[in-house]
């Protein structure tokens, strides 16, 4: 790869030079990443979901102008049951209801197949599926990224510290990692869920911590062990650098590329875990998530009993969304892998 030389005049402020360097580093990383088709595919999918997330606030407004006729709006405002004063009431992901549903012929209960006003249909409570899907995207991202950040932060720090100090500290955290790896996550969360209300943020924290002390500590520790024996660590010690300096100025910065890589894989695991937990009904339905959408289709009896394909729009959209977003972070991780591990690169 070609690196542009930064021209430096001593009068230039140091922070500006550092910004330039950062920019230059990002550009060259991007150049390497962009060579990976896998990584770009993943990034494309992530961007698609981010767009979906950003479109959500204007979705009802768009539908009002594009899909609803003035007569339908008028009828909804004067409906005998569930009359609305604003279009936002129809597309609310939790309490939404289309008051025109009783007029439809092609329905079972409140379930409507995909149609003009509901591109992905409605569920058994008359809520718009696409609205729920879009409204959940933000939660999925927040949960996944937050949990992964916590995981990687813990894993990096503990990995660096155990590798650096060894001995008792090492033994302690490695045995702890064994415990966390063998941890009965689902049973633990069932107990926890009965004791307190599991919000998405709490779940992110719990998942982040549970994963952080587990497998990732061992992986990142082995990386830290390889860094610890480099002569530049000895050079820093000869210069007078203490433990703190060596760990935070030398070991951790050299672990960060790999940490970032594992962060991508951990977003995948966090989203996946959330989906699984929601499916077990372990998350309160105060807000929607994709897992909760599948769960409610399941508890309504629309997935089992040979009816799954009759009402496919109840579970295919959230299912596909979970699969796609999880794969997307995994694919980005694979693409980054080729940047971080030069040996994987073809050149």
């Amino acid at each position, binding site marked *: 790869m070609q*690196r542009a*030389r*930064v021209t*430096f*005049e*001593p009068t230039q402020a*140091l922070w500006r*030079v550092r910004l*330039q*360097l950062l920019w230059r580093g990002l550009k060259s990383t991007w150049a390497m990443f962009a060579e990976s088709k896998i990584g770009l595919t993943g990034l494309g999918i992530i961007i698609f979901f981010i767009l979906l997330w950003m479109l959500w606030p204007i979705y009802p407004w768009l539908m009002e102008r594009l899909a609803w006729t003035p007569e339908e709006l008028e009828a909804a405002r004067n409906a005998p049951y569930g009359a609305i004063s604003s279009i936002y009431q129809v597309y609310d992901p939790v309490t939404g209801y289309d008051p025109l549903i009783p007029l439809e012929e092609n329905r079972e209960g409140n379930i409507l197949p995909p149609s003009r006003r509901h591109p992905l249909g409605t569920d058994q409570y008359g809520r718009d599926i696409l609205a729920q899907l879009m409204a959940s995207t933000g939660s999925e991202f927040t949960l996944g990224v937050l949990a992964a950040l916590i995981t990687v932060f813990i894993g990096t720090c503990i990995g660096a510290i155990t590798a650096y100090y060894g001995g008792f500290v090492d033994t302690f955290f490695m045995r702890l990692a064994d415990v966390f790896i063998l941890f009965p996550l689902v049973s633990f969360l069932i107990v926890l869920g009965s004791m307190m209300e599991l919000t998405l943020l709490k779940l992110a924290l719990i998942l982040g911590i549970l994963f952080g002390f587990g497998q990732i500590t061992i992986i990142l520790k082995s990386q830290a062990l390889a860094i610890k024996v*480099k*002569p*530049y660590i*000895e*050079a*820093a*010690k*000869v*210069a*007078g*650098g*203490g433990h703190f*300096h060596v760990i935070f*100025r*030398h070991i951790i*910065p*050299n672990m960060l590329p790999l940490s970032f890589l594992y962060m991508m894989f951990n977003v995948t695991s966090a989203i996946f875990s959330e989906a699984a937990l929601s499916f077990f009904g372990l998350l309160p339905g105060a807000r929607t998530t994709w897992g909760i959408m599948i769960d409610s289709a399941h508890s309504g009896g629309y997935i089992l009993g040979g009816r799954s394909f009759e009402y496919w729009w109840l579970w295919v959209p959230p299912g596909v969304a979970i699969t796609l977003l999880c794969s997307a972070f995994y694919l980005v991780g694979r693409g980054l892998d080729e940047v971080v591990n030069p040996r994987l690169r073809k050149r």
Partner: protein
Amino acid sequence: MVALQTQTKTEILVRVENLRMLYPVATGVFARARSFIHAVDDISFDINRGEIFGLIGESGCGKTTTGKLLVRLITPTSGHIYMRVAQDPSTDSQGEQFVDIATLEGRALKAFRRNVQMIFQDPYESLNPRMTIFDIVSEPLSIHGIGSIYEREERVAELLSLVGLTPPESFLFRYPHELSGGQRQRVAIARAMILNPSFIVADEPTSMLDVSIRTGVMNLMLDLREEFGISYLYITHDLAVARYMCDRIAVMYLGKIVELGPTEEVIQNPLHPYTRALISAVPIPDPTVERQPIEIKGGVSKPIDPPPRCRFYERCPIATERCAHSDHPPLEDKGNGHFAACYEI
């Protein structure tokens, strides 16, 4: 160089006494280590101010371990390292004290570190790949909290020019991987020089470099000695390099110094059978040196719990009964400051 030597010949900067470094050999998971590698085994020598003291010997004889002990990267098992250290490095030699640094800890150890530096063998691994040249060279300043960020920048630029990386602005904010091996080793030298140390350990600083650029790096270190009166412990396995760089050399074999003296004296007139074999085995680019090949049996082993006799006994071509039954011979003065450890000379 001559003027400098006569002027400071008598002033001892570093005095090493009975220094030992034993590494335990892991025998089992639960077993306590009962065996030890005698990496450095009871060595003593002096280094004068402004002197380049060479340490030569085959790989594994304990050269790097000695160097790391002298900069206190590791703590010796036993022995003393007396060094003239400035309490405040900005004061001149008047403010210096001759202290045993072998067991320093904490604050005192950190203060001592301002006096000594080390240049490592592999310039590809001794510079943090994620730091810019500015960060690398100024790191000792920031660790010791010296100067403002602008002063540091100026000082780094000054040192980069000093080691021949000009113009310094074009190097300050590049990363090590953008530099050649020789340039990197110059960066390592600039970093070692930035705290004005009185003593530098250079561990085979040119052995990983292209032959064509070695001389440049060696000349730079000679120039720095000339200009700042720095002393070096110069580690090398290359006799030609030792001859070019060093005022005096010590020859190590399995953790022991077997011969020590002025470089030319040792090379022209080697006394110890191991030194003779070493010199006959290595082509020295000097036609005036005449050598007969001397054979030694076997190869170097690891000094794990060595038997209490001459370390060279197994390979020595002139070993006698006496050697078999006596301790390792002491290092004795054979005249002209030429020391050797052998019963049979």
